[in-house]
């Protein structure tokens, strides 16, 4: 079986990487979760069975973190998709120079999380930013303000993802035959009715997909938190990944971090399964 030999040789490089850096660390999380990290370095780790799972997953900090992350997703995902969809629909008309607007609307894909966060961090800065001048200063300043900090991070994120959302929605829109929208026009549908009765239903697979993928992204958000709020004020922006990061880096608590990581995986898996179910049911017409 020379062909089989060649095949294994071809997949081997990938498999080595996956094994070493995805599957092994993934599985090891479950093992790490059984051991409690001693309060002082140097003491032996103590096997505690499922106790640590129970403790961490019912702890106030964890529940708060899940709440914050869900809230963050709720702030960012629907708004981001709606904004991308709105811009895509607006840019989907026959106008001279429309390409320039398309480029501008997709331009934020060129920004990274760090770039976006530093820009917004500056704009929202209490000393050099624009808010005091606009008379929108909050006390304490917005990124230190329990009621506003998460929202500020969310706005940064929405802006940074706007380009991606726009591109995704635009290519979905381009897949809708022009004739359908023209037919609707002739059938007497106004702009809103065309949007509501033709565009949205036909785009619903793309939208569902974006909702789920966007939620998965939202649950992995880290950089903007680290740069803008460090989880504060008083854990009001302590999203799951940031929680994992501090548990690992500052508390050096592998065991607890592993349980948190497993929780993150569980949530992602849930979202993926939901997506598969919904997409299956939602692909309701064939071409």
């Amino acid at each position, binding site marked *: 079986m020379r062909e089989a030999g060649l095949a294994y040789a071809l997949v081997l490089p990938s498999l080595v990487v996956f094994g070493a850096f995805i599957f092994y660390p993934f599985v090891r999380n479950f093992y790490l979760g059984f051991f409690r990290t001693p309060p002082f370095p140097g003491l032996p780790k103590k096997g505690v069975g499922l106790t640590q799972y129970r403790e961490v997953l019912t702890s106030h900090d964890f529940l708060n973190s899940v709440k914050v992350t869900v809230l963050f997703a709720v702030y960012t995902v629907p708004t981001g998709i709606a904004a991308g969809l709105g811009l895509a629909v607006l840019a989907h008309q026959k106008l001279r120079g429309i390409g320039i607007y398309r480029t501008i609307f997709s331009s934020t894909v060129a920004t990274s999380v760090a770039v976006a966060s530093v820009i917004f961090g500056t704009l929202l800065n209490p000393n050099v930013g624009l808010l005091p001048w606009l008379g929108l200063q909050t006390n304490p300043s917005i990124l230190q303000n329990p009621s506003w900090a998460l929202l500020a991070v969310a706005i940064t994120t929405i802006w940074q993802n706007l380009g991606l959302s726009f591109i995704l929605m635009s290519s979905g829109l381009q897949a809708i035959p022009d004739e*359908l929208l023209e*037919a609707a026009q002739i059938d007497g549908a106004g702009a809103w009715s065309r949007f509501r009765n033709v565009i949205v239903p036909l785009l619903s697979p793309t939208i569902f997909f974006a909702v789920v993928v966007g939620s998965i992204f939202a649950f992995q958000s880290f950089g903007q938190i680290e740069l803008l709020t460090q989880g504060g004020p008083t854990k009001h922006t302590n999203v799951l990944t940031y929680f994992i990061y501090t548990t690992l880096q500052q508390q050096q608590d592998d065991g607890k971090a592993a349980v948190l990581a497993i929780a993150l995986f569980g949530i992602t898996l849930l979202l993926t399964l939901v997506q598969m179910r919904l997409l299956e049911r939602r692909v309701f*017409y064939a*071409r």
Partner: protein
Amino acid sequence: MTEAARGDVDVDGAGIAVSLREVTKTYDNGVMALGPIDLQVRKGELVSLLGPSGCGKSTALRIIAGLEAPTSGTVRIGSRVVNDVEAKDRDVSMVFQTYALYPHMSVQRNIEFPLKSRGMPRDERATRVREAARGLGLEGLLDRKPAQLSGGQRQRVALARAIVRRPAAFLMDEPLSNLDAKLRVQTRAELIELHRRLAATVVYVTHDQVEAMTMGDRIAILDRGVLQQIGPPQAVYDEPANLFVAQFIGSPSMNTIGARVVADSEAVAVELPGARIMLPAPTGAAVARAGADDVVLGVRPEHVRIDGGQLPATVSVVESLGHERHVVCRLDDGTMVIVREAADASPARAGDAVGLSVPSEHLHVFDAGSGRRVAV
């Protein structure tokens, strides 16, 4: 623009359902797709817009529908100028080549959509949809999605969606071209019937001349954005306004033979490769009046006879279609002449030297320079 090319209807607008006046269209990329063209469609009339691919048929239709704005000119639906009216507010409906059915809606909802968009009450909608569906034999299919229908059924749903509104005019852009040959003939007949039953005004775009001839009360022939001729099918067939129309209409298409005009004191004759033909008096007079030296003679294949006539030719191919025969001949200078004859006529064979005769009353004379019809 020649006289014949003008829409031959009064200008005052009574009884006119759709009218284009001096309409031109230049696309943003600089393509001059249309015009200027004039076209009047009477109420209850079916006008076929016929022409080769890319001649501007769809453009004209889309301008009437309001999907495309004319660069200049006036568009009217009824007596109302609609240049400024959006597609959704023009009283027209359209059947697209690809049908453009909403894939996510059932047949019922597809047909209902134009009524719903206009805010018609539910009961009335239901009645109208039922009526339209019955008229097109769609009653059993109302709950299906378009993907679950055959091509012919989809086509009928598209028609139902168009008629359910009872608009001032129907616009159809090659609605049959996605059907197979047999279904196309059948649907063609159904469309004619429907048109009669509803006394509907229809602008029907097609590039199939048989379709245009059989369906149209009048046909309008377009070439490169310019209206070449408009009139009843038989009139256009019998008296094509120019060479383009002459060759576009009819299958096999009209034979054309280059010729020189030879005029003496009594009569006008034309000189062909290997023969000279006297023109009948009125034709000759017209040719003389036009003062052309070079002309193109046109004669339909069914009017040429292989009977030892004065025009020498060689048979090159004989195509038998069963009920008739096309004999392809070549004149001395290589010009091709096709003769259409009954299957039981005396058989000519490839290679035979024959003499053709062309009855002068069936001779069309065109100016060689402009291509325009000269005679009578």
